[in-house]
């Protein structure tokens, strides 16, 4: 099975167009997140990147509500989850979630990213699609305080079990 990059980009383009045509107000992107309303609609994009400069082939930006459909699309194409991590853009008041994917049989690397309001970073879990996401999401919750809706167990994985702090947030003070 050889998967081609243009086909994959086209599939993502389709996914994003469907997302863009969704009427406003319907399909709440992050239920339980009042901060979401204040955030301007996140720009969605699908860009081919130069592997030699970036280390990945496709860079996809989706709205928080689309991370699960993006994961399902990649799951259907035989991708595996590399890692999930957060990225604190404190100056912008945003929290980015970055999903790295690799393909076990093709030389294809895809990055899916989304931005959440930093005050209330909530995004649906993709552990329903990739069970391996369970630990990565727990780790991102430990480090950044990102809440993954529908995650079976967000208790600290690497931090102490009573940890109520998120050390990779940029305002976490080093003593």
């Amino acid at each position, binding site marked *: 099975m050889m998967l081609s990059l243009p086909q994959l980009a086209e599939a993502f383009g389709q996914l994003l167009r469907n997302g863009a045509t969704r009427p406003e107000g319907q399909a709440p992107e992050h239920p339980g997140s009042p901060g979401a309303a204040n955030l301007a609609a996140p720009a969605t994009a699908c860009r081919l990147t130069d592997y030699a*400069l970036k*280390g990945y082939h496709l860079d996809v930006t989706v709205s928080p509500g689309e991370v699960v459909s993006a994961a399902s699309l990649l799951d259907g194409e035989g991708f*595996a989850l590399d890692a999930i991590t957060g990225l604190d853009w404190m100056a912008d008041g945003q929290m980015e979630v970055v999903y790295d994917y*690799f393909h*076990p049989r093709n030389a294809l*690397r895809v990055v899916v990213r989304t931005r959440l309001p930093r005050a209330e970073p909530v995004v649906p879990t993709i552990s329903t699609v990739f069970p391996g996401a369970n*630990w990565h999401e727990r780790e991102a919750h430990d480090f950044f305080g990102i809440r993954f809706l529908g995650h079976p167990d967000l208790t600290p994985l*690497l*931090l*102490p079990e009573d940890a109520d702090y998120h050390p990779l947030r940029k305002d976490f003070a080093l003593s």
Partner: protein
Amino acid sequence: MMPQTERSAADGPQETFVLNLGPQHPATHGVLRVKLTMDGEYITRAEPVPGYIHRMHEKMGENRTWAQFLPNTSRIDYLSAMTYTHAYVAAVERAARIEVPLRAEYIRVITSELNRLSSHLVWFGAFLLDLGGFTPLLYAFDDREKILDLLEGLTGSRLTYCYYRIGGVCNDVDEAFVQGTRDFVAQMRPRFGMYRDLVTDNVILRKRLEGIGPISAELCRRYGATGPVIRGAGVPYDVRKVEPYSVYGQFDFEIPVFPEGDCMARYRVRMEEMAQSLRIIEQAIDRLPAGPVMAPSVPRVLKPPPGDCCFAVEAARGRFAVRIVSDGKEIPYRVKLRTPSFSNLSLFEEASRGMLLPDALALMGSLDLVIPDIDR
């Protein structure tokens, strides 16, 4: 040996009990805890509890310069430090557009493959120790000692190497290292035949490993497991071939793959892989180009342009990837370390369900876990 069976509620009323494995237990190879729910000798649920030696390397990355973080990367998987420092320096080189001299790339390949061999030799000894065979460890450590001596002469370290630099390697190899490596390759080759005769073909070992702990290619994909785990499930995934980095594309070597998916398949992958590493080392030593070992124009204060980039390598335990984000300053904005043991262990709960406890420990040993690689 009892066959591996699945128990279900239909078998009758169950009485389970909780058994704590670790965090201080020789079979977990470090401070890993596994919360076991047992039905007699059978595992109903095995939940790994990592984090006991979490050191927050990624936060450390955000309060020191790009070059200062380098020693941290050799202390994550301490058995495979060369490949880890390789991924980090290569990620920074990619971000800062630094061209590495060819001789330095060859030296990186030679030292990384020597490190892969020494890492697999530790696994070989420790895994057989898990299974109750003490003697092979002594032979494996004898071989490994030669590698550690070679690398100590070159780098000054025996384990946590910090030999690669952003832009190359810190000092050139000398004639003693080149000759010593040639001698080592010649000495090591016949050892594989001995290991095969004494260990691999041993009927007790085979009964202990064959058909035990099956992990399918699909299970690996769903959990992101890589390295000898996915290659022992029949998938020829090796970053050195799939995303050839450094000068790996210039060497003739094979990716050992075994389709059975059991503990024996993972054992065989690593044993064959060691012979392939020798092939790479031999070719690289023979064709070692002349020239400098450091890029001429690496700035003293490194400030990669804003943006992110990734670099993945094939470490001894699988795919190790570094994702860095720069905001144009001399300190990284973010360093994400994607470690193979983390993903490889995450499938343990699903793979060990219904297994006998001693078999599950064979399964755990066949994953070749390094605990700081999980906890970071």
